């Protein structure tokens, strides 16, 4: 971290609500690294990013890269919705809640790529990859071997 300045971060994600709590999460996007908050005192991960650990109330929360491994926990298919680049609702568009390997209940919202619709299912192992959206990287997931 540090290579991408605050000014560059704000310039490359101009329509995203970035603040002091989530700036490292989004800076990670630009570096194609998925960075979530972890408490340096008790080890507890949380998401969305907050300044205080919800488990032990420590302020010693450190943005930390995750492995990108996880499983599909929830899975829906959107048949309509507001336009977004690269999103095709006619297919329809899969929206997945991924439970990350780092901790039970540590989840992130994303979509699934490189997978036939009929092969997508709750419980499938996935791994992180990246697509371009609104001119910047965006974290998505693809099938992984168990």
């Amino acid at each position, binding site marked *: 971290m540090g290579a991408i300045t605050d000014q560059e971060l704000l310039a490359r994600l101009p329509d995203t609500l970035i603040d002091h709590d989530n700036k490292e999460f989004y800076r990670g996007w630009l570096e194609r690294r998925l960075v979530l908050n972890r408490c340096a005192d008790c080890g507890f991960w949380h998401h969305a990013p907050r300044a205080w650990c919800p488990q032990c109330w420590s302020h010693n929360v450190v943005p930390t890269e995750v492995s990108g491994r996880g499983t599909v*926990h929830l899975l829906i298919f959107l048949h309509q919705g507001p336009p977004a680049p690269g999103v095709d609702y006619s297919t329809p568009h899969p929206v997945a809640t991924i439970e990350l390997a780092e901790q039970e209940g540590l989840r992130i919202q994303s979509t699934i790529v490189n997978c036939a619709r009929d092969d997508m299912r709750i419980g499938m192992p996935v791994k992180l990859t990246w697509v371009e959206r609104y001119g910047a990287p965006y974290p998505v997931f693809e099938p992984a071997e168990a």
Partner: protein
Amino acid sequence: MFRNPIKDKIAFVGVGSTGFFRDANARTRNDMAIEASIKAIRDAGLGQADIDGVVGTAPAAREIVEALGLPKVTHFSNQPMPLVFGVVDAMNAVFSGAAETVLMYHALYRAPAISRSAANDPFRRGLGFGGSPAPAPTRHDPEVLGAEGYAAWMSRYFHEFNAPREVLGMIAVNERSGAVKNPLAAMREPITMDDYLSARMVREPLCLLDMDVPVDGADAFVITTAERAKDMPHKPVLIHAATNGITARNKEENLDGLRHHGQHVVLEALRAKSDIWIPDIDVYFPYDGFTPITLQWIENTGWCKPGEGYDFLKDNWDEANQRIMIDGRIPMNTHGGNHSEGGTQGSGHIREAITQLRGDAGERQVAGAKNAFLTPGGMFFNAQGLVLRTD
């Protein structure tokens, strides 16, 4: 841990409604909020000088005070939706003496983004959810869960229990059967299970008929002490128990699971506060903004075990009237709910419960109804419970 010193001390003494519409409507949200409020205050036999508390969702309480010309108000606040947030604030205000008689209101207004006829109304430009000004635009990512969270957790339910879609279809048909008999309802054409199963998918596994209908309209209520209520025009409807409930993990994707969320907190508190429980009730109002919410309330309230909702609904299905009739006796959402009366975030459930307990529900009337059990709200950050009764 669960005290309830307010039990039966506060009463609903007035109701008013505009009814609900989904077609073109050249009225404002304020216009309808004021109409419902005037109707509710008149229904209670009161006037401007009698109202010293105002609690609502939107518009702002101070606007309603000015619009109604209320001369002296000592408690006013705006609360989130659904309506039990407002009920709890209003009843506590009366119980504490912050106010003697509280007007409670809720107005719905379709935004251009969710309704074709609203999009064609140039005077709604710039309005967002509920008719409040839309927030500044940001990038849109369809992966962000809002209301989609209900579809997402229903995907988990289907994964865990392998239930057929008919479990939701029975709820949808039940709601519509209620609305058919409700003159205030927006959706009054009957639907069948075939209609449900062939409706287009929107947020798969949820289809168009799993979702409530966006409407324009308003409901209002008047609340005062049970003591004062005895001398007022209508049979008082007493607030027996009321609660809200939330867990630490309440963001849609972060929920612990289908067996631990806001509904469980509500039900534990309500069970401890209320002398009336489900075997004693005469009419039942589980929330139905999305059909999975209703299914979750039914299972979590203990009518059946988790995952057994389909068998429960089949066993309690009134085929002749195309509705759920629990134990052959207890109907559910007799007015059609958010699903078919209109998406009122629970004000419709409360209004219909009061109407039923007063004995004023016409062809929907449950004979001799004395106890109503309401569970407004979803699973994430707005689950609520309310037990109403009459003598």
